[in-house]
């Protein structure tokens, strides 16, 4: 079972977490219908490094995890509103 580092509670088995999908910016309200539909319905299946939402259930903590999905390797995690430490890769 994978380990995930919660920025508040430290390294825990992934069963303590809920996955929240890739972090994606909501398009502005005046976007076109196709742009909006793309945001609502389409998810990227491209392998590589992604930033994802993860939730530590016991403490109710949402955070970001940067993960190389092709290797299933977590690169770093941080809280919304805070900045990740270290450089990418």
């Amino acid at each position, binding site marked *: 079972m994978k380990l995930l580092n919660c920025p508040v509670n430290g390294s*825990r*088995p992934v069963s303590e977490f809920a996955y929240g999908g890739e972090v994606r910016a909501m398009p502005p309200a005046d976007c076109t219908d196709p742009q909006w539909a793309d945001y609502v319905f389409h998810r990227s299946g491209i392998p590589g490094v992604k930033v994802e939402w993860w939730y530590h259930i016991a403490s109710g903590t949402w955070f970001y995890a940067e993960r190389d999905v092709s290797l299933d390797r977590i690169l770093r995690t941080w809280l919304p509103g805070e900045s990740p430490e270290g450089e990418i890769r």
Partner: protein
Amino acid sequence: MTAPMTPVRSSPVAQALVARKAQWAPYRGMPCAVSVSAEDARHSAAVGVCDVSGLERCGLKGSGAAAWLEAQGVRVPAGANEWVALPGGGIVARLARTEFLIEDGPSGTEVRRVRPLIRAGIDGVTPVLRQDCALVLTGERVPELLVQTCNVDFSGVPADGPGLTLTQMVGVSVTVIRRELNGEPALRLWCDFTSGPYLWETLVGIAEELGGGAVGVAAAWPELHAATGT
């Protein structure tokens, strides 16, 4: 007609203890299981699972919670997921970063002082109604019970250290601290009221396999026993 009402508080695991024919004594308006069976002392030395939900507690959270508590004269743990002791056997626990659980010990009075002050409208402070299922685990085989129920390594966590763990046990979200009771290492657990019966039955079932079982406060926490009758 307005009936003369003396409200009775009930523990989330009251029914399970009734089924075990526990001996009861009131503690601050809640029947408290003083002893469960004649084997309480032996069970407690192996793995005892003891209900202490009757202890009084209150909660709050928010960016201003720590400062507000300090302003009320409450000592606040310095770091996330830490706890400090209160006079009378209680604790102030910092859950993650900005949430606090205050629980009075058997003879504590801090909650009674602070709880009425926590209300809506304080900047940065959100009141949290605490209705926990609160347990004590005692005995030398608690580590064995832990490795059957929780995927977090507690073996390196010092007893009575300031650390607090928010994790899951048998699939239930729990708050865990290690602290000494009666000079012996013990484990304190809190979970949601409505998950209490499931957590209780599961832990007691495993404890029984390990030579322990459900116990009353007389064996697990004599100070609490001494404070019953109120």
